[in-house]
């Protein structure tokens, strides 16, 4: 790598007043023709391009991003990473992603600050505990780490949590995935962009795809705000905007785009060392390396492409956090924001070919796709390169909505993450 990062590079550049750093990624003018176009410069799109170049030798690739790189949901998620999904297909897909996370900083030579501080899902009812047991056992048999914890063990790990019976929904236990954790969201996009760019991928920002050029049932290219760009394979990785792209191809997707909100507190000294999530009281929280509590809300009920939601959703989330952490009542919210999540009927992604030859979609990650970023890009690259799904994403094709072979993760994913 021309511009390798290390402690030595920091010292060397420091001595040169940081004037010799190279661009992390290049911003070339778009070419007329590419082998593959990836629409959407979020984490998933960039990862797809990176693995196309790295693992499939397809380097004549463009990533087209309508705004700034990583400015979609990648910029606005609560960064929870875990693979403890219930159903085999989902567990294997997310575990594939988690394994990639485990070597990602080194692979990309970009520290994405993947922090395996563990993810805890607390249960408040007998049924929650049954579900926790079921999921933990399924995880263990799928090779995914899982522990079931008692309230006292929870308290030992998260001293500020209230396990008393004063609360409306007393905590009965939790599942815990030690290998889960959080990462620095922006760094993931930048790291993949840098890696892909290094391998020859063209990363083109401020380039909105406004139409898909289709002839005789085959994709030929795309219309963009910067002119037409041709390619006979196009992968759409546009998260909340996937339905808009599908419409350009005359397709409908089983997706609804909803606002999903999050907020952060002011920065504080370390006070929780893991990720705590609760389905029943509907809130989740972790603390970033910078010290702010990162808190996610539930989705707003209505469709929304506005990157903003309704304030009562945030108020409810604050109440949920206080229900679990009564002392956080005096902590303050510094900033709130929203994203657009593409929710699928079974809370599982769609990684699929379409009836238009050469047109692929990777979407439907909804409230929980950040954790899949490397895994998703990896299998999607395979799907595009071979025009055939990777074994890990075969079950996530569009045809499941016709056959009825849904992979219903709703139970395991009732709150957004």
């Amino acid at each position, binding site marked *: 790598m021309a511009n390798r990062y290390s402690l030595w590079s920091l010292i060397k550049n420091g001595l040169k007043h940081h004037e010799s750093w190279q661009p992390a990624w290049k911003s070339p003018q778009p070419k007329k023709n590419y082998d593959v176009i990836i629409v959407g410069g979020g984490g998933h799109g960039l990862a797809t391009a990176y693995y196309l170049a790295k693992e499939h030798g397809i380097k004549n690739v463009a990533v087209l991003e309508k705004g700034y790189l990583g400015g979609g949901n990648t910029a606005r998620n609560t960064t929870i990473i875990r693979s403890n999904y219930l159903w085999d297909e989902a567990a294997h897909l997310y575990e594939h992603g988690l394994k990639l996370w485990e070597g990602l*900083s080194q692979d990309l030579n970009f520290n994405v600050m993947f922090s395996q501080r563990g993810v805890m899902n607390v249960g408040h009812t007998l049924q929650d505990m049954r579900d926790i047991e079921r999921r933990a056992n399924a995880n263990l048999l799928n090779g995914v780490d899982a522990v079931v914890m008692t309230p006292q063990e929870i308290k030992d790990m998260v001293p500020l949590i209230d396990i008393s019976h004063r609360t409306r929904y007393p905590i009965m236990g939790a599942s815990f995935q030690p290998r889960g954790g959080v990462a620095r969201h922006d760094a993931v996009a930048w790291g993949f962009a840098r890696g892909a760019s290094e391998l020859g991928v063209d990363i083109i920002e401020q380039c909105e795809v406004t139409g898909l050029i289709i002839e005789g049932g085959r994709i030929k290219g795309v219309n963009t705000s910067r002119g037409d760009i041709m390619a006979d394979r196009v992968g759409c990785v546009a998260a909340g905007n996937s339905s808009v792209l599908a419409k350009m191809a005359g397709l409908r997707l089983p997706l609804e785009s909803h606002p999903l909100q999050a907020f952060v507190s002011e920065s504080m000294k370390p006070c929780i060392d893991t990720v705590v999530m609760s389905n029943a009281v509907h809130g989740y929280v972790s603390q970033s*390396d910078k010290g702010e509590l990162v808190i996610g809300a539930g989705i707003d009920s209505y469709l929304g492409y506005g990157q903003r939601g309704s304030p009562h959703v945030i108020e409810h989330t604050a109440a949920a956090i206080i229900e679990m952490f009564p002392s956080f009542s005096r902590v303050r919210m510094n900033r709130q924001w929203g994203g657009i999540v593409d929710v699928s009927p079974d809370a599982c992604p769609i990684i699929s070919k379409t009836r238009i030859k050469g047109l692929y979609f990777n979407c439907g990650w909804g409230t929980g796709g950040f954790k899949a970023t490397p895994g998703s890009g990896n299998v999607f690259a395979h799907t595009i390169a071979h025009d055939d799904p990777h074994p890990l994403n075969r079950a996530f094709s569009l045809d499941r909505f016709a056959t*009825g072979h849904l992979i219903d993760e709703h139970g395991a994913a009732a709150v957004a993450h």
Partner: protein
Amino acid sequence: MSGYRIHRPGERINRQKPLSFIFDNVQYKAFSGDTLASALLANGVRLIGRSFKYGRPRGIVGFGAEEPNALIQLETGAHTVPDLKATQVELYQGLLAGSTTGYPSLDFDLKGLLGKFGRFMPPGFYYKTFMEPVKAWPFYEKFIRKAAGYGRAPVEADPESYDHLHHHIDVLVVGGGAAGLWAATLAGRAGLKTLLVDEQAEMGGWLLTERRSRIDGLSGMDWVGQRLAELASLPNVTVLPRTTAFALHDLNLVQAVELLQDHLPLTERNAALPRQRLHKIRAHQVILASGAIERPLVFGYNDVPGVMTAAAGHSYLNRYGVAVGREVLVQTQNDAAYEAALDLALSGVKVTLADARQGGAAAWRQQALKNAGAELLLGHGIAKVLGDKSVTGAQLVKLDGRNNQVIGSGPRLSVDTVLSSGGLTSTVHLFCHNGGRPVWNQQQLSFVCPDEGRENIACVGAITGRWELSDALSQTHAAVAALLLGHGRGSSGKAPAVAHEEVAAPRAIFRLPDGKPEGHGAKAFVDYQNDVAAADIHTAIRENYRSIEHVKRYTALGFGTDQGKLSNINGFAIAAEALGKPIAEVGTTTYRPSYTPVTFGALAGPHVGETFDPRRYTAIHASHDARKAEYEVVGQWLRPWYFPKAGEDLHAAVNRECLATRNSVGVMDASTLGKIDVKGPDAREFLNRIYSNAWSKLDPGKCRYGLMLDENGMVMDDGVTACLADDHFHMTTTTGGAARVYSWLERWHQTEWPELKVRFTTTTDHWATVAVVGPNSRKVLQKLCTDIDFDKEAFKFMDGRTGTVAGLPARVFRISFSGELAYEINVDANYGRYMWEEVMKAGAEFDITPYGTETMHVLRAEKGFIIVGQDTDGSMSPNDLAMSWAVGMKKPFSFLGKRSLLRSHTAGDGRKQLVGLLPLDPKVVLAEGAQILSNTDDTVPAAMQGHVTSSYHSAFLGRSIAMAVLKDGSKREGDTVFVWAHGKSVPAQVVSSVFVDKEGVRQHA
């Protein structure tokens, strides 16, 4: 020690009310009316914190919401609050505060030592290192985390309360400066329901600081007094100080938080009152008068304690009677800072003013300053500040008049304080919260709100870039008059008269040059809180983080608890320069709530503790309490889980309850089941469509179990529905599904089949339901009821009757969720507990035993009955549950979910089906949630066959039983499978899921 008290006419502190407070274990004196910041400065305290990245000494920079450095911890124990800005903390007697940074001490900080290597910590340095060796990251991270963060989270539950208040008003005015006060006056006079909020303890805004202007011939604060008196006299106007509008949402919904008691000593707070109140204001019209905030200039070592904004120095002097130094250098590029310099000079402070402009301010200002004894250096800028923990001097350079360049060296001044002013930045935040965009104004050098505002949002005063009071007020008057006209109301009065003063244009300079390439000279800070220096922005752009959002995210510019109130414009300007683009094209980052941080407590308001979520109780609850029930949370309900007798645990109690019920009679409160009255000539047809089974032939007086599917063909609810009359049904649903089903019925009826004449009314709360279960249940009922024939032929299983039980009108259904002879008695819930107690009395001779949900679960599992949500998970079709008998595939109308059952996968093989399991060792109770394997030697990833959904010890059978879903389960009866949980596997045999009374003799008894 630099700051000191100095008497100022019109100061806002009360010298008659001295106070004392403690900061970092030292006691200091102050006055009522001080903020913590003014009091610290008055006591000469400068070093307040250490910077985020480099641990550099930091002091107070601002005087209000904009403060980036002085983040303190207030109070201790349960009352502690992290990260308050000292500039916004009103002082009270006995206040206890401390710094939040500095390890081991504020004075000697380890990070400060590390920070000396700051040149090796460019923006994003952590992305570039700490990668090797892989295993060391957790170790590095621990230090990174420790080094970050300001205050400490409280560890005790919050002892104070919060509430919400909703407003529906005509006009909300945000900001009580000159512009806001005048806007509120006009709206109030026009008779509009008006609310004026200001974050500060006192109204007046900049007039609290500025003393020279005369408005309508009055001094600024006299005019403010006049306004407040008038507003107080108008019944349609409410004025709320200490109230920050922190978010503006769609359709003018503004959230504002009022600090009701934070300014009071802890001992004087009224426990009956909330600490803070969240106002949720729907205003037809919002008038934003949130003013402007002065930004500093960016120059070398501009972060040494003692460097502040000119507006801060000015405010401390005039509002709090605190001179921030004895020898003060004021650096400016505009006229306004001359006012600060002038007032300081007039107060006896030695003042030097350096103006980046060659020509300086309007002539009259220069003259006034000179007359006051100050020294004036035109065409000068600070190259760097001298001093370490406090300013000791400054090195100046001569500036080129046009280009941002150094043309010669300047004097080295010995001063103890540096004030700087880079012009004003309009407070546009709320305007932009839901999509509004500020516009760059090159004359005023600020992003401002457009004069025309937005739909139903008017912008007045400094928020529009009107820096001169006369302009601000005349613009306010015109804008509000136009708005009132739009409401069909005239405005009364003329615009307040303020003399217009001549002003020289400010210079478009943000970063003062020091003659060296960026990055080579002294660090010049843009964002103090996140230690973002001017060079960092250049580095980011060099690395292709060119979008302003990338600059923000890569450097953390504006990411702090001040949200870049001082730093953003400077950062954008420096980025613009590095990009070679005009600032207007670079644009701003996105403004988001909160304007200033707001407590989670205020957001949650009353929805915490016992009112976090409704606790729903049945009418019989007091009886359960009296019998010492343990409760289970089911949805929002509290249901008795089991009724332990002295010394019993769950299992002992449940065994006893089960046996009592199977052998004699038990009683359960079933009131939480959803109940819906379904009536109309088309009720039957409707039920046919909504349930999977058939309803056409159910006679009045009969009950039937029904399954409800979603359109995906999966079971979503179940329950027994009784036919009361040909057109009238009493439907029951699961406890948790009641609201969903009720809505489901309404939606299908209204959207899809409005032609069907049927209506639904929820009666869940109306009926209290007592289930009397067991072989002796008939006898109990017979004792209580004379007008219903309980003979087994007259009142059969799945029959329903209305009659009188214990003297009360009742609906009695002979239905059974246990496989026993059983009746459910429904009475008006006001009589629910009476009925329960009558049943208990009548059953006493049979040792009638109350039981809870756990026993209910065991009894129904013994009989193989499912519980939706426990044995199903949204992926089970009726066939999967071995309940195809409840699917009327031949019904004429294609009921909900039917078509989905025919899809290739749903109808195919290999699905999981409900079965019974008997552990080979009858003493072993399988774990619920255990997974099922076909072989013991399966390796990971193992081929899971299904899982255990329900599992109990059956006291009646004297062994364990379980229900499970198993791949192709219906074909595997007799197989042995291995039930796996947490590494241990237990063999079990696949059996039918009916364990007790397969023939149904008991329930038909």
